[in-house]
């Protein structure tokens, strides 16, 4: 499930090939281009509309979710608003997801830990967190999260006591789920910015929990 690869090679004289066209595109890329060009030609949308939407999608990233979590940790009234209507609460901090599917925030407690999956496809709160990681969309994660949640958590380095309920949340309808992790101990008096830095994307999916540095 590694996303990173490291460049261990040194740069010799021939390592940088001249710029050349990419090889044959996969058929879906060809299909996408054909449909896109046809829709633009027929005036369904303009090329600029598409570019703006791509920019909007790219601008969404886990730091938006982290800010929601950090504010919920420091402001109990905001937390209640976040749990009642996540999209509206996101609007309060300048995250506009009004056109997106509804988002429901799941609060972790000492007795219950949430793990989000979409076994049917790969539903994910993109309007707040941006695009999901490749492992979240994998057949392996989608199958194993409901069958062996603690095994999946262990692979992410997360172990929970037996007495804690691991609740796997399968996003089968049009609701998107985002986990509100528990605030780590040792963070008393921290600013929202400092707290937000502790909140990773993975902790808002539920495969990890935030940890305050020792």
């Amino acid at each position: 499930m590694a996303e990173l690869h490291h460049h261990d090679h040194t740069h010799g004289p021939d390592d940088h090939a001249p710029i050349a066209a990419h090889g044959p595109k996969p058929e879906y890329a060809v299909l996408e281009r054909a449909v896109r060009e046809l829709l633009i030609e027929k005036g369904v949308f303009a090329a600029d509309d598409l570019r703006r939407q791509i920019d909007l999608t790219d601008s969404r990233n886990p730091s938006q979710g982290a800010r929601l979590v950090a504010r919920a940790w420091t402001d109990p009234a905001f937390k209640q608003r976040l749990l009642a209507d996540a999209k509206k609460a996101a609007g309060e901090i300048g995250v506009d997801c009004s056109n997106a599917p509804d988002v429901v925030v799941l609060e972790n407690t000492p007795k219950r830990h949430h793990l989000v999956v979409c076994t049917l496809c790969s539903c994910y709160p993109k309007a707040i967190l941006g695009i999901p990681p490749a492992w979240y969309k994998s057949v392996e994660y989608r199958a194993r999260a409901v069958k062996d949640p603690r095994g999946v958590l262990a692979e992410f380095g997360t172990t929970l006591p037996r007495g804690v309920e691991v609740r796997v949340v399968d996003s089968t309808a049009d609701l998107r789920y985002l986990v509100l992790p528990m605030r780590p101990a040792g963070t008393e008096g921290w600013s929202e910015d400092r707290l937000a830095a502790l909140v990773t994307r993975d902790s808002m999916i539920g495969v990890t929990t935030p940890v305050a540095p020792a």
Partner: protein
Amino acid sequence: MSAQQRFGPGDRVRVRLDWPETGPRRVHIRTPHYLRGRIGVVERLFGAFPNPEELAFGKPGLPEQPLYQVRFEQAPLWADGAAGTDTVVADIYEHWLEPVTEARHG
């Protein structure tokens, strides 16, 4: 809310053991295979929404169907699993749920 709600939080429900995918028509079903025929407990009601099984084919999906979050014990969903603390919840439309009546004793 336009639809009447048949179930409330705490109600025991069974997911219908039905397999429209094996029929003659093309279908779009959101109820996962691993939950069909299983008994769970209604956790909450989300309101009513157009039926996605019809929306997928360009139909309006009306009348709107109440959508429930239903909780299942996780381990017993799989062969030989004994109930522990862990659970799975899923969002299931009302037309896929049946009431479970408790057996009367004595």
